[in-house]
């Protein structure tokens, strides 16, 4: 056992920190640290800077443009990115469809999509959830019927994050309606510009737009856009959903949020009750960070028991840090505070309130993050999984 970072890892971290500070454009960093939504342009600029270093998707195999970093190093890199306010890259592409493509995709698919993901030329969205198929994903109904060299896709997807900016969607569709629920599903890549694709915003209680409904009406998708084998989509989806589960704790985000909170709320921290809440949060975060490290470091005992804990507690901490920020802001935390980038706002934005710049975005985050304990398997589903898979109840 060795619970400290090695000298090599410390050096890695110092180097990456220095590089990020030297290369992240100041205006992008400022927007990031203030919690504004990253614009597509910000993501493009930053991803391309990283890609020039070969760091756009560190977790990918080196042969597809990834790094040979250890999981711990990738985690340290994440911490530094978030601490610096770097824009979050296209996670649907980097973390979800990318690994599916390099693992199960055809050579043509790899060539067509992977470089454009790494260079932020193609943005992606995930078409899994459907109305009436929330936690129960296998009951999805969107169907794809073979017609010549195309699948004709009809159905409706929902909770589709960032569909409004995406070029491509990877979707689960039902190709065999006769098979049992999981068996008849395929994994398709759909061009968002194709005729029959329509995106409708779902405004969320942060008065922002990060999710959408996507209607698919007789959308013709070339057969070459089928990933792997037909009717095997469920196994690719499962692969995708368990990928990078250590990252699901999102501790790097919470750590960055906590740092921001401590910066702007220095005065409020003189209140012992408030200080105690911040301390409790920080302590819970420290425990969770070490839980992440146990999984990342491949501690044998941690792989099942701890991994299942990460999403659940991680989601709670993301909520708590935003709520504490709102509380610290007093009345300024109760004011609807639209994103000055104008990006993703509703069609009836509220006027900007006369509050300090550091107050921006916290109320919206506190509201939107009620979803962290819902999406990606709600905390109730996580508890079911722990009870069954870990405890054998």
């Amino acid at each position, binding site marked *: 056992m060795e619970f400290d970072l090695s000298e090599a890892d410390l050096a890695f971290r110092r180097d990456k920190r220095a590089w990020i500070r030297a290369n992240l454009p100041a205006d992008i960093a400022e927007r990031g640290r203030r919690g504004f939504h990253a614009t597509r342009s910000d993501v493009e600029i930053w991803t391309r800077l990283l890609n020039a270093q070969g760091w756009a998707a560190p977790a990918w195999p080196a042969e597809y443009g990834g790094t040979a970093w250890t999981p711990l190093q990738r985690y340290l890199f994440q911490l530094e990115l978030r601490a610096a306010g770097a824009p979050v890259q296209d996670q649907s592409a980097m973390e979800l469809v990318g690994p599916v493509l390099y693992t199960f995709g055809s050579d043509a698919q790899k060539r067509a999509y992977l470089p454009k993901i790494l260079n932020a030329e193609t943005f992606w969205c995930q078409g899994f*959830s459907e109305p*009436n198929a*929330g*936690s*129960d994903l296998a009951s999805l109904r969107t169907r794809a019927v073979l017609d010549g060299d195309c699948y004709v896709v009809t159905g409706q997807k*929902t*909770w589709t994050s960032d569909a409004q900016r995406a070029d491509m969607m990877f979707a689960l569709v039902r190709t065999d309606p006769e098979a049992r629920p999981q068996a008849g599903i395929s994994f398709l890549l759909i061009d968002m510009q194709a005729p029959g694709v329509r995106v409708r915003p*779902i*405004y*969320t*209680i942060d*008065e922002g737009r990060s999710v959408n409904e996507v209607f698919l009406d007789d959308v013709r998708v070339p057969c070459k856009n089928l990933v792997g084998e037909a009717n095997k989509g469920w196994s690719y989806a499962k692969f995708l959903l368990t990928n990078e589960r250590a990252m699901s704790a999102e501790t790097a985000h919470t750590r960055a949020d906590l740092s921001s909170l401590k910066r702007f709320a220095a005065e*409020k921290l003189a*209140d012992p*009750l*408030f200080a105690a809440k911040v301390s409790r949060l920080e302590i819970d975060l420290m425990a969770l960070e070490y839980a992440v490290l146990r999984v990342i470091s491949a501690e044998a005992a941690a792989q099942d028991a701890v991994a299942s804990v990460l999403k659940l507690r991680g989601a709670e901490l993301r909520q708590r840090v935003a709520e504490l920020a*709102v*509380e610290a*802001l*007093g*009345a*300024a*935390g*109760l*004011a*609807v505070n639209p994103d000055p980038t104008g990006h993703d706002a*509703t069609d*009836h934005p*509220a*006027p*900007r*309130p*006369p*509050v300090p710049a550091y*107050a921006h975005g916290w*109320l919206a985050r*506190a*509201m*939107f993050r*009620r*979803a962290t*304990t*819902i*999406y990606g398997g*709600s*905390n*109730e589903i996580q*508890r079911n999984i722990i009870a069954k898979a870990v405890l054998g109840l």
Partner: protein
Amino acid sequence: MDFDFSDVQQSLQDSVKRFCEREYPFEKRQALLRTEAGFDRAHWATFAELGWLGAGLAEEVGGFGGGPIENAIILEQLARALVVAPFLSSAVIATQAIARLALPEQRDKLLSPLLDGTSIAALAHGETAQHAFAPDLAAKATKTKAGYRLDGRKVFVLGGQAADVFLVSARDGAGESLFAVPAHTPGVERVNYHAVDGRRVSDLTLRGVEVEASALIGAGGDAADAIDYALDYGVIGLCAEAVGAMDAALWITRDYLKTRKQFGVTLNTFQALQHRMADMLVETELARSMLYRGIAALALENVLERRRGVSAAKAQIGEAGFFVGAQAVQLHGGIGVTEEYIVGHYLKRLALVRGLFGSSDQHLARFAECAAGRNEEEAAGLRDFRPAPGLRRRRTRRR
């Protein structure tokens, strides 16, 4: 003790319910919120006609002989329908401040336009985002030949956008005073924005604002207690809103669980969700109990005891409300966090209640301060709830 409605109270509740059903279905409400004003002045006229604007005032000051109970009845129902009219800010807080502070000869002139709905008032008191109860006022009033000149800055003025008149607190030579300042007086600059639940609030800047001598409410220098009292009234009003929102969110969630299917069965069959709902019911019923306790406290003559009871209610209901709102969203899943579905808006209302007029912890601290030096032996149990006869509200219409 009697926790059941009188006939008059029952018909008041029915009347608010009817209004909400007719005028405030959720879709109509959402459309109204998208308008510039965010509320409909015609509704205000209805409130006046129905007597709600004076529901919490004694008859001798032109009200309907009610008190905080009647206000709570109205606010609870309005909150169920997520009404955003400035009822709390004008018909409760501003009205109570005036009724408490105004000299007998001022009272009618100041209150009549509020009670008949021709004017809407808002208390402009807090000066920083952190102020909770008794800010150290920086706004100042200077005596002039014709009256007073006011200078200062006020933030998060609840109901500020709709206000025709601001009740502005300011420090003068004698102490804290309160001035009735028409909203369009030169030198009054108003910036309107939205609170989390859609309510319109304003920041005010007053630069050399000249008002007549008659703008001074009360004798001058004597406003602190009345403002404190009015804000306590406002806190209990918020608590009533919370209880309405909690109860509505609870039962909407109940109905959702009974219809929504997942894994082939309706969600209400899952015991973990049943128990969460049970916890929500527990919090809701205890919040209602605490609301009644808080209403009783408002009538206490002993200011420390009043504040203690009011802060207890705020600390408890603020947290319980957020819990119920958040869990109502959680149990709905994805749809709970959408703007187009009602349950998230209850959470927003409950978030406002938790944060407004002092955080839960600030009220916890005020509760403890007010209790310091209290004779626990004598106060144990209910003794402390006894209102002083002098301040008991009139109950002429009580069954």
